[in-house]
């Protein structure tokens, strides 16, 4: 057998198999069960305990490249909070962030929720770490107009908000920097806010030490985290539907790694 050939499979074959492994279960779901991890359950429990009328801050720190991982998390948490009557204020330290916040809120506007009362999109503040510190300590003082050009201080939802401690929780939807590190360095460490992170899967290892130290109260990791949150809510949605495809994609990658290694060792054996 030509083991060398198996070590150099044409990338087009790999891509086609990967697309088939993800497309087929998306059209015909298998229904692999999703279990809820401890961190997602803690995240859900905290959000579930927030009384109606309280406010939660979403920091939308990601761009289009992180959206497939993070938007499902934001959708799941937003749905939970809206169902409970908790108000949501969004801010962004990435310039793409307000666009995703706007898309998220439009869905609920169509359902009768009111902009400025039930949620608001404060837009984007440039300046990275410095901007996060300023916003953390003086919310209304650091942003004068929202994404829709309304005066921020005139929005009913901003009543009683001085600094980020006035939010029941701050959730950073993060794909990199500025994001989790800066929030922890400049706001969580000094003001002691209830800080949560919903990040791209690739960022989970960097965030885990902060979960262990308690600086992050709970973490949702990527689409899997979104699926766990939907399951905890008892409302399986888009993220749960994609878990079959994700699992089959992983199995395929594992198979390719195994084939590559078997071929490598067999080739070595044959050469002897």
């Amino acid at each position: 057998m030509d083991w060398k050939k198996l070590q150099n499979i044409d990338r087009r074959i790999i891509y086609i198999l990967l697309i088939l492994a993800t497309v087929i279960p998306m059209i015909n779901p298998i229904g692999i069960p999703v279990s809820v991890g401890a961190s997602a359950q803690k995240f859900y429990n905290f959000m579930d305990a927030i009384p109606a009328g309280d406010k939660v801050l979403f920091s939308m720190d990601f761009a289009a490249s992180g959206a497939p991982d993070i938007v499902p998390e934001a959708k799941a948490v937003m749905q939970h909070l809206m169902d409970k009557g908790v108000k949501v204020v969004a801010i962004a330290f990435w310039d793409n962030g307000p666009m995703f916040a706007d898309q998220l809120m439009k869905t609920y506007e169509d359902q009768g929720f009111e902009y400025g009362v039930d949620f608001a999109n404060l837009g984007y503040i440039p300046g990275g770490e410095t901007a996060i510190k300023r916003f953390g300590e003086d919310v209304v003082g650091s942003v004068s107009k929202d994404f829709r050009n309304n005066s921020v201080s005139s929005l009913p939802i901003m009543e009683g908000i001085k600094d980020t401690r006035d939010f029941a929780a701050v959730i950073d939807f993060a794909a990199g920097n500025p994001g989790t590190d800066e929030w922890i360095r400049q706001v969580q460490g000094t003001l002691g806010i209830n800080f949560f992170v919903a990040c791209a899967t690739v960022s989970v290892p960097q965030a885990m030490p902060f979960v262990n130290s308690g600086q992050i109260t709970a973490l949702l990791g990527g689409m899997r985290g979104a699926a766990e949150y939907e399951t905890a809510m008892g409302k399986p949605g888009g993220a749960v539907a994609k878990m079959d495809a994700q699992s089959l994609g992983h199995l395929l990658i594992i198979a390719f790694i195994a084939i590559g290694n078997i071929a490598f060792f067999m080739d070595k054996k044959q050469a002897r």
Partner: protein
Amino acid sequence: MNISDSIWVWIGALGTIAIFSFVFKENPVYRFCEHLYVGSAAGYAISVNLKSIVDSAWTPITQEGKIVLIIPVIFGLLLYARFFKNIAWLSRWPMSFLVGVGSGLAIYGVVNSQLIAQVRASLLPLTSVNNVVMVIGLLSILLYFFFSMEHTGGVKHAASVGRWIMMVTFGVSFGNVVMSRISLLLGTMETILGKWLGLIAL
């Protein structure tokens, strides 16, 4: 099958397929879409940043009488002095200010939140397997990067444990990268199969 009648969904879906065509071979359609994406992303960034300048500087100065904001505006403009040879040195003033403020903020934050808090979180009682693994991992990796003594005997073995633990950590990171990339693929497939072709529920 319920194909979308929105032109924007069609543009998004066809653009995605054009970008995927790179998998087979680089081609003019791929290059066109790549440039279109870079251009539109730059245009969006410029418009959002301009809005930020108008909201946080122009409007407060011209309509709310916050004249003091002229100082940061002048500092900001001085950054562009570097494009003019004879006054390029002026750009060092705002740069020095930015570096000073940035360093001051970062040093306090890093020491307080990323060093002291992390060290405190690592001082764990050895009462569970998790804690034992965590403490052994931490100490052995620190020893691996301790170059003030020769890595022989017991130190060599302990450092080697640290190396193995790092390898496992890299494996975990790679696993997360794979998972993240498949999520990206699923996101684009959702656009094509759901929003565009209407084959799956959104």
